[in-house]
């Protein structure tokens, strides 16, 4: 690959990219504060019903029938085809759904009865999801906690395997990835549900993987290169790992895009989050994690811990 043959001065662009990243993080936080996230059913609690009609149906008509049946706040949208609608009921709708869920009548039967206009059009419930308010709240808490715990564990591991400056740089890069991905979800009003939370954790996994590969090379070069400033050594390391960075990002993007385009509506949020996260995570290994190392004045001395020589490792 042509990229390999040219040494690229990555760190010369550290400042402008750093400023761009700070701007992106600020915008993301701003958007999260102002718009917040379009939380999915898993977190907000409420009911979601996907109804299939045997004939095309108008969304307005369904909304009207739901209103008449005592669900004034029902949101109805077309789902996939014109024969499927998705109905969302907020949890504080006039009818207490928690009560309903505990009564012997099924919520689904009730909605089917409300929608049936007696014209002989067949209705089927493809999917019904009811999430009680307490469950949603707890999930949001444990999800947020999970993200923090994951970051904490990664920080400790990197601090032990490398050094504290590396740990700080890695975790700031991860925060950067998570915040910008969340920011994009918030800016564009994309729905944030449980699968997106899973995707965020997968992004942390991917991004740290990428960062570690770069760090590993930086550590190796700091130890074996006699000459050169940290600036040069980081540049060399980035160039050496560049082709791997690009290829791995590419193969992963290939499969994630397959998911995005073929995976269907229910997995869309997950695939979008991963697509964004892999791009941002790849970028942040270079321009956040590595630039921060430089900014934190990483030096040969930081890595002078006595570690056994790995070059003649008895690996297979």
């Amino acid at each position, binding site marked *: 690959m042509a990229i390999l043959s040219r040494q690229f001065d990555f760190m010369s662009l550290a400042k402008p990219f750093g400023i761009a990243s700070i701007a992106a993080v600020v915008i993301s936080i701003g958007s999260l504060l102002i718009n917040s996230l379009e939380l999915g059913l898993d977190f907000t609690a409420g009911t979601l019903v996907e109804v299939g009609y045997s004939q095309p149906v108008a969304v307005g008509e369904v909304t009207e029938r739901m209103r008449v049946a005592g669900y004034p706040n029902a949101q109805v949208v077309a789902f996939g085809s014109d024969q499927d609608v998705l109905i969302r009921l907020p949890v504080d709708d006039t009818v207490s759904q928690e009560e309903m869920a505990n009564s012997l009548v099924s919520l689904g039967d009730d909605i089917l009865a409300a929608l049936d206009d007696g014209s002989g059009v067949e209705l089927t419930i493809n999917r019904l999801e009811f999430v009680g308010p307490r469950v949603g709240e707890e999930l949001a808490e444990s999800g947020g906690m999970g993200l923090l715990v994951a970051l904490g564990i990664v920080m400790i591991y990197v601090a032990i395997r490398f050094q504290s400056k590396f740990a700080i740089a890695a975790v700031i890069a991860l925060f950067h990835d998570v915040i910008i991905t969340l920011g994009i979800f918030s800016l564009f009003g994309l729905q944030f549900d449980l699968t997106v939370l899973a995707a965020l954790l997968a992004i942390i996994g991917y991004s740290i993987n990428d960062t570690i590969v770069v760090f590993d090379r930086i550590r190796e070069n700091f130890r074996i290169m006699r000459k050169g400033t940290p600036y040069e050594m980081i540049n060399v390391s980035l160039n050496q790992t560049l082709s791997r960075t690009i290829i791995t990002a590419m193969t992963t993007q290939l*499969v994630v895009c397959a998911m995005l385009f073929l995976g269907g509506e229910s997995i869309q949020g997950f695939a979008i989050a991963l697509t964004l996260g892999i791009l941002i995570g790849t970028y942040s290994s270079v321009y956040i994690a590595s630039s921060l190392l430089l900014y934190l004045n990483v030096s040969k001395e930081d890595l002078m811990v006595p570690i056994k020589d790995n070059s003649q490792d008895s690996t297979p």
Partner: protein
Amino acid sequence: MLNKFPLWKNLLVVFVVLMAAIYSAPNLYPDDPAVQVSHEDSDITQFDLGAITDALSAESVSYFGEEVDGGTGLVRFSNLEDQLRGKAIIEQTLGNGYFTALNLAPTTPGWLQAINAGKMSLGLDLQGGVHFLMEVDMDAALQRRMENNVSTIRQILRSERIRSRSLSLENSNLIVARFDNEESRSEARSLIRENFADLQNVTREQGEVFSLELSLSDADILQLQRDTIAANKTTILNRVDSLGVSEPVVQQQGSNRIVVELPGVQDTAQAKRILQRIATLQFHLEAAPGAPSTSYTTYEYQGQLIDVSNDVILQGDRVSNVRSALDQSGLPQVVINLDAQGGEQFSRVTRENIGTLMDIVLSETKTRSTFTTAADGEVTEVQETYEEKRLISHATIRAALGREFVITGLSTTEANELSLLIRSGALAAPMYFVEERTLGPSLGAENIRQGTQAVYLGFGLVLIFMVFYYRIFGLVANVALAVNVLLLIAIMSIISATLTLPGIFGIVLIVGMAVDANVLIFTRIREELASGLSPQGAISAGFNNAFSTIVDANVTTLLVGIVLFSIGTGPVKGFAVTLMIGIATSMFTAIIVTRALINLIYGGRAVKELSIGKYA
């Protein structure tokens, strides 16, 4: 630097691949939807089977593989729709006394079943069904225990003639007893201490009033919660059995919730009716020999027929606590505590019946359908509820029993089982539905279709890219990748993990990320070649130098996977499991399998050039 693997390493690779192929094979044999038929008290015969097949043919429902095995009949269908229609037809044909259950009949060849090779089960999002999350009302359980305590304390104080001003339950975990003087209070306190080891007490004075506050410790509340959830889980398991669902899932989630997943069930209302039933528990004496046959009921217990008197000596709601424990000599026993009224009642009856056998009967309300055909041929389904009673304990009364008594002579498993059953009848706390999800079967089929398409496309693109970029080495990486997926499926089948849509995407993501280890090694080999190493030297140095990077990078991802697993529920957990197993298998295949193949191709001979793409 000949790059040869010792024989054992090559054999290990062959062995692992072979095992992976065998243990992932069952997934190639999808289960047949089937209906299982049994009769209340006799075996199913070929004659019954003939009646069933005739009726099915008459309604032109296609079926196959009908068989009678060990007293139950089985009929297979080619799709779920036929299965449901078939079940209704069979129920109508056979009438009352027969039980039909939906079932998935395995088609796995016998030798695979013999080595316990199972398949991954499909999550609800892939096959449709209902999912409930039920919350157990722990506060109610605690309240009931404390109410029992209040009534017992009242009884004790009365019998010891200790006067109290008032005695009441202030909140679910606080009993307050008020006395006129210090003396009565200290007497009461020592009595309570004697009788209730688990109640903590605090004394308080306010003017002329001397009060005693009693509560359960946090540890005891925790124990109560554990017992209660176990009791509720047992109850649910028993009820789910009566639904006749194949592969139901009943799992505890967190400290107070239970997940119930019923694949294939579409009638939510019926499922809910059954899950909310309450079980009851009754204590009886064994019927005296020669008693009139109307005065007793016969139960089967461990293969014996036992006549149990119809008189109830104690109702289950008098039971305040049940636990299995070990006695002084280390033998398992079940310890049952009764409330005051129950204790008194019980001691009176048992005193008069020492040497008689006492029986505990658990009754559960269940539903079944009956079909009636009207004159015009219209068939109507009527659901009726009936009580199913089971004898769960049959033991001799050795002494007059009081508020606390034990049942001995059991094995450890029997003791655990019995205490669970008694609890499910006596201690199960109310439950509420806090989450309900229904997925239609068509949506499941659609999810499978889209999921597999995405897997094929993603996998295909990666394979093409690798060969294009790394030539022979890319081909080797592709073989390793295929082995990786095979291993992943084998391990998931062995631990009978549930495959969900996010799980499928976990596999897709793993495929994308798994090549990373190979990419790391190959770029390293290219670098070594560029720096002038011989082909053999470059292979060896490439693998060795990339090793610690691969381990570091994968361990961090694995750590994140563990966090994901511990916070996630349902589908997210499925994703985490796939991710974690995938990381482990991809390290094995990228490092060991790839190396074995490279060694096979290039090792042990003079090589001028490696087919690894451009590197200069």
